[in-house]
């Protein structure tokens, strides 16, 4: 399906959602990250924790996404990336991303975020250069896709908070997960 179609679907989905003040979200997220930085000694473990929290959100959020977005099954991974960039991000964060930088196998791409509401009011001091501030979003994407049987890796590679021109998330397809049935009675 076309990009235009997804942009429109994103608008429609966004209009249906309950809204929360973006400022409140940004401040709350800031407090969360600050608290994690206080509690953990290493910045790297904060990144891991943010990703994990995002993952836990993602595996639940995908239900709401599928129920409210009206998006059918994706044809291929390219399609999936467009849906994330144009519909899912719009629906939950009111932003869209461009999908660029496909590799030749069409398994890896880059999501270029035009705007990140979580970044509002944020300035990273030089000592926090290792912090991936928005990593929670990557966790959400990984968790959400895992629920539809896709294992991906997802992480921030560029961030405006660190002086880059754009914020970019690298998204790479790993494998299709097979459903395993375990009979617990046996």
């Amino acid at each position, binding site marked *: 399906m076309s990009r235009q179609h997804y942009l429109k679907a994103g608008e429609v989905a966004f209009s249906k959602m309950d809204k929360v*003040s973006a*400022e*409140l979200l940004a*401040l*709350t997220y*800031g*407090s*969360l990250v*600050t*608290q*994690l930085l*206080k*509690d*953990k*000694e290493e910045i790297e473990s904060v990144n891991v*924790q943010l990703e*994990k*929290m995002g993952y*836990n*959100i993602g595996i*639940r959020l995908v239900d709401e996404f599928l129920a409210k977005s009206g998006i059918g099954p994706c044809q291929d991974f390219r399609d999936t990336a467009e849906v994330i960039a144009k519909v899912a991000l719009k629906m939950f964060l009111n932003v869209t991303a461009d999908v660029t930088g496909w590799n030749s196998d069409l398994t890896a791409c880059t999501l270029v975020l035009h705007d990140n509401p979580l970044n509002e009011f944020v300035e990273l001091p030089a000592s926090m250069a290792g912090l991936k501030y928005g990593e929670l979003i990557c966790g959400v994407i990984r968790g959400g896709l895992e629920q539809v049987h896709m294992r991906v890796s997802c992480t921030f590679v560029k961030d405006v908070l660190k002086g880059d021109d754009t914020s970019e998330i690298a998204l790479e397809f790993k494998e299709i997960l097979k459903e395993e049935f375990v009979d617990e009675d046996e």
Partner: protein
Amino acid sequence: TTDGRPVAAGAGEGSSSSSSPSSLSSADVDGVMVALEEMGFMLGGKIVERLTASRSRLQDEKDIVKFICKDLWNYLFHKQADRLQTNRRGGYVIQDNTLRWLRHMPPMPDTAPPHKRPMAPVSVICGIIRGALTHLGLSASVSASVAEPPCCSFSIKIPS
């Protein structure tokens, strides 16, 4: 502190742990609540800073508490608090009958055990109120009770 770390590990799963804390001991849960309250405290200070940037200083204790019920509540929940009472011992009770953050909680009887109660969001709000009051010049302690979600009341104690 050193016991801060296991707390944070729990806080990470906090998005779900308020409903399924079975894997956490009650000491862990308490630690998570303290961390959440502290997080709310920071948040409350920041919000108040933004809300009061363009207005004159609030002098009176009553005005400050009214500000919490009106402006802060509006900012957080798009509505004002339903009821503000003073108790005789110099404290205040803010009541909200339809607290937005508890809207999707199932109804629960009074006999429900404490760990089943929605403590996580309420701890954050307590922290926010305490942070807001502190930044407005009132040091106070704030506690909450959830009778029947989404109805919740917060009591503010101001040491004289």
